[in-house]
């Protein structure tokens, strides 16, 4: 693809802290390379703001290679921007053209309160994982890789579910602010594997309870989560989660 540079108008949500009201600010950036990532474009903007003596825009990021799940910008009406199966950090400026206006908002959900500007607190996801998204094993020597046979199809399905990076785009995209795609990925990943077997029932019950406590909405299967997920987690995991939950709650104490 041919390299080009562009001038852009940005409309960015600014909010001093969790309790401040917040609102949109307009910025312009010039000479942006089509080969920059979206976050690099923000770096350029922040450098400019700092040089002007203004407060830079707070946004989350860490790996910048699409694996950590920290970046979280809602760009032009879609979490992680216009590309399919792409995190904000992997979105490149060639997705835009000279003169475009780009609107950038934080994830919106009461369970993900804004900390500052575009950074939101996704601690709710950590607490859901702490409620059961693990296997309790005593660590020791590494087990031989072939000691536990796993059917290839199951291993693949578990692997696809395990690809969830916990970014929260599914919540941001959902009209109900539901965290079901995230939870279904975490539950499916372990439910499909023998290692997850012993705690299969208590895990799903406890994680769902924690999810409800965190104030996420209920899933109505609209499919917006699947459409926006940077890791292409399938909505059929949600149906699996429902089955796991129904089966577990029928036999739970």
């Amino acid at each position: 693809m041919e390299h080009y540079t562009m001038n852009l108008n940005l409309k960015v949500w600014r909010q001093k802290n969790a309790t401040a009201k917040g609102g949109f600010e307009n910025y312009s950036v010039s000479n942006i390379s089509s080969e920059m990532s979206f976050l690099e474009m923000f770096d350029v903007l922040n450098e400019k703001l700092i040089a002007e003596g203004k407060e830079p825009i707070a946004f989350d990021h860490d790996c910048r290679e699409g694996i950590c799940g920290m970046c979280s910008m809602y760009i032009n009406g879609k979490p992680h921007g216009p590309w399919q199966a792409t995190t904000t950090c992997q979105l490149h400026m060639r997705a835009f053209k000279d003169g475009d206006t780009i609107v950038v908002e934080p994830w919106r959900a009461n369970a993900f309160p804004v900390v500052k500007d575009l950074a939101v607190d996704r601690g709710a996801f950590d607490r859901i994982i702490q409620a059961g998204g693990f296997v309790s094993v005593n660590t020791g020597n590494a087990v031989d890789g072939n000691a536990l046979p796993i059917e290839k199809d199951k291993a693949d399905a578990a692997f696809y579910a395990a690809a969830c990076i916990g970014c929260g785009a599914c919540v941001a995209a959902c009209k109900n602010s539901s965290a079901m795609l995230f939870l279904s990925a975490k539950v499916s990943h372990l439910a499909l594997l023998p290692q997850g077997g012993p705690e299969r029932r208590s895990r799903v019950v406890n994680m769902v309870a924690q999810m409800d406590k965190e104030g996420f909405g209920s899933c109505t299967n609209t499919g917006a989560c699947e459409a926006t997920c940077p890791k292409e987690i399938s909505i059929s995991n949600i149906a699996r989660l429902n089955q796991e939950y129904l089966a577990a709650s029928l036999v739970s104490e």
Partner: protein
Amino acid sequence: MALTGIFLITFLLVHVSINACVFADLFVNDDGEMFNKAAHFMGSTVLIRIMEVGLFGGIILHIVQGYLLTLENRSKRSVGYAINYGNGGSKWYSRSMGLLGTLILIFLVLHLYHFWTPARFTHVGLEVPVVYNGVEMHNMFLLMKTTFISPIVIVVYIMGCVSLAWHLAHGFQSAFRTIGVHNKKYNTLLISLGYGFSVIIPFLFILMPLSFHFGWIG
């Protein structure tokens, strides 16, 4: 939601089958005999009257749950987006189940007023009974014929059936996901079945008022 929804889907299947008896007039010119007999059976059998109570319970539960769910889900995002994800991520009718349900509800009130109230209570429009093999019964066929003269009624019925079609286009497959069907084979089948059901059932329903209105039957 899913259980009451699937229950209402099975009700629709029974309802459309019984009502399809009006089309007997088209083929054998029975002036509604088959339909009146079927309606009489539905109205006079004790078991079916008990099921009617269950049906009302199911509908009310579905409506109450539906509105509570819609309100609660709305309360989870106090500050909205400047630009909505909209149709890029999901179908408009999947996001509008509360609205579609409300349109169905408006239709339902009028529909019960047209047929259920007269048949059970007031008998307005059913003063002259029909007699088949010595058994007297309501002439529901005639009541349909007179009700569907009004073009306004036709418009409301069309609105009701179209809303139902979109409601089911999402609801049918959603209900099965909610009860945990995740097997790819069944899901593919249920999706096709759902779309088929959503088109065919409301289409058959809408054919009835239209057939009376334009004099194809009756």
